[in-house]
């Protein structure tokens, strides 16, 4: 596969000697305009990689924070076309920050999938994380995505044992997303020592960078996880900050952008701690 923005970004950070800070927001939360403005400001706040959630009515792998975020976006009328428009707009001013679309398969399947890949590629999408497409379904989207130069990011989990790992790695590209806990997003914080051990074990079998997510909420957790991984993903905490900044009618205020940005500024400092020893 050709080199993508994701490959370049992880390679550059490896040279810097630190992990990537990956920030998740849901596209269109709380509305498309506010969401785009927030997205554009994420890189300067400290996001090395942006994960953009494609809202879905039934986010089965997500905890309440991301569920509510998804519902807010859908209620405000977010569509797949608007999500891809956001990426296109973002790319006009930022040619380097990798963008990964994250979500569930059905909205892509009905788009339909081949048109989605063409439009996503044209818009400037670099990777996909599709929660309900395990390796057994690689013909659906993973392999066609590779054909248009989009990385298909695989998830490895605490239940991914030695027997399972080769299947997970087979068509993986970009980086590997290690799900730090058996569970849904935004719940219990992971134990850094356990995570580091799991990441080290997986590294025996792959040269791909490994980013860790699920349950990371504080700068200290980011700092701890970053010492044994190539990236740290924060999602639920950021979308909760978006929610905290809404007015009583659920509409955007200045705070809707400023709170999550302040949080990203604070948390992303955690990936630099390793450079200070």
């Amino acid at each position, binding site marked *: 596969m050709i080199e993508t923005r994701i490959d370049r970004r992880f390679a550059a950070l490896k040279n810097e000697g630190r992990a990537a800070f990956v920030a998740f927001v849901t596209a269109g939360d709380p509305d498309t305009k506010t969401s785009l403005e927030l997205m554009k400001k994420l890189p300067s706040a400290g996001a090395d990689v942006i994960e953009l959630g494609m809202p879905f009515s*039934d986010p089965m*792998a997500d905890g309440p924070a991301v569920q509510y975020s998804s519902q807010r976006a859908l209620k405000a009328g977010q569509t797949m076309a608007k999500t891809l428009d956001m990426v296109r707009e973002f790319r006009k001013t930022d040619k380097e920050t990798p963008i990964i679309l994250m979500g569930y398969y*059905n909205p892509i399947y009905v*788009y339909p999938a081949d048109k989605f890949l063409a439009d996503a590629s044209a818009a400037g999408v670099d990777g996909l994380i599709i929660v309900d497409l395990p390796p057994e379904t690689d013909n659906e989207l993973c392999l066609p995505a590779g054909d248009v130069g989009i990385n298909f990011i695989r998830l490895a*989990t605490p*239940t991914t044992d030695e027997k399972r790992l080769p299947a997970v790695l087979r068509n993986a590209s970009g980086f590997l997303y290690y*799900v730090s806990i*058996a569970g849904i997003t935004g*719940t219990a914080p992971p134990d850094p020592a356990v995570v580091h051990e799991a990441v080290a074990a997986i590294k025996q079998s792959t040269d791909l960078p490994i980013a860790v997510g699920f349950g990371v909420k504080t700068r200290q957790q980011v700092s701890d996880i970053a010492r044994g991984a190539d990236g740290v993903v924060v999602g639920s905490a950021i979308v909760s900050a978006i929610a905290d900044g809404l007015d009583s009618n659920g509409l955007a205020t200045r705070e809707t952008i400023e709170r999550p940005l302040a949080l990203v500024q604070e948390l992303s400092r955690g990936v630099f701690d390793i450079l200070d020893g």
Partner: protein
Amino acid sequence: MSSNETILNSFRSGPDEEGAFGHFGGRFVAETLMPLILELEEAYETAKKDPDYARELNDLAKHYAGRPSPLYFAPRLTEHFGGAKIYFKRDELNHTGSHKINNTLGQILLAKRMGKKRIIAETGAGQHGVATATVAARFNMECVVYMGATDIERQAPNVFRMKLLGATVIPVTAGTGTLKDAMNEALRDWVANVESTFYLIGTAAGPHPYPAMVRDFQSVIGNEVREQIMEAEGRLPDSLVACIGGGSNAIGLFHPFLDDKGVDIYGVEAAGKGVETGEHAASLNGGKPGVLHGNRTYLLQDDEGQITDAYSISAGLDYPGIGPEHSWLKEQGRVNYVAVTDNEALDAFQLCTKLEGIIPALEPAHALAFVEKLAPTLSRDHLLVMNMCGRGDKDVFAVAGYLGVGL
């Protein structure tokens, strides 16, 4: 009729190794669950070949659930409709009042073999929740049932029943608080407790191997009908009719007859206020293919692929998807999928009660409402078997409400 039909040797050979019925079915689940799904498939394949497993299941089916259920000739409805000879497969007489026990017994024995100590389930009307709580009590396992907050309100007696049986009922307020949301929440629980927990899915849907496994457990219905109708009439039936939500009672009745070309088969979906109104639960008649809850199948969804709410007077049919084998049988043209409205089902509910002294659940009342349309068009020697898959005791309060009667 598709050209595939002439090529196929059998409609009963699915699913393939990937869990697919044609392009439906499959395993669309989070990676965390994949190892367990594969383990479950292996455990089920092993159990299927084990005579001890079959013996234990048959023994429980007979002495605990009360199988075989009778095949009953309904004389007054036959006379009233003035056409086909109508038989009811009396699965409402099973322990816990519906066909759901056929499946929960099969799965709890599998959970026991796999060393699981904790059972989770989703429920809509509460029938599957009750059937799960029942077998969990019998096998001394912890039981957690997820139920939409909206459904908890309209099915209070079943909620209390589950609690009496020792289950914890967790109200689900996410989304619209109905069956699909309960299933989402059960999946979230499963992913967090994957080592200890067995997810006992109530219908012939979800990731492989559930659709095939639940179908196998429910096929006892159709297999008994084959024997019983031979005994009663000396030949196979001409038509089969069953209601469809997720489709477990229907596939259980239909599957043993799929290769009998002379048997016409009808699945009856819930048209709610009418398929054209958008307020219905008819995934096959009013939906399109998509991916949800681990399988590709017909779904109620908007143009963006967002799942829309199902609506039906019957909480047991109120699901925006359907088992993948039904989607395949629809595309193959082997089964005719039709739909009847709330009002038609309510009329059939009352008619059956008055003429046969059987209070049907609102779910099979949908099947009967279609029988009411079909039977008069058929000759008097036409044999029609309808699955009476649940009893209506749970529905009398709701029906009173709809009829404007205060209790």
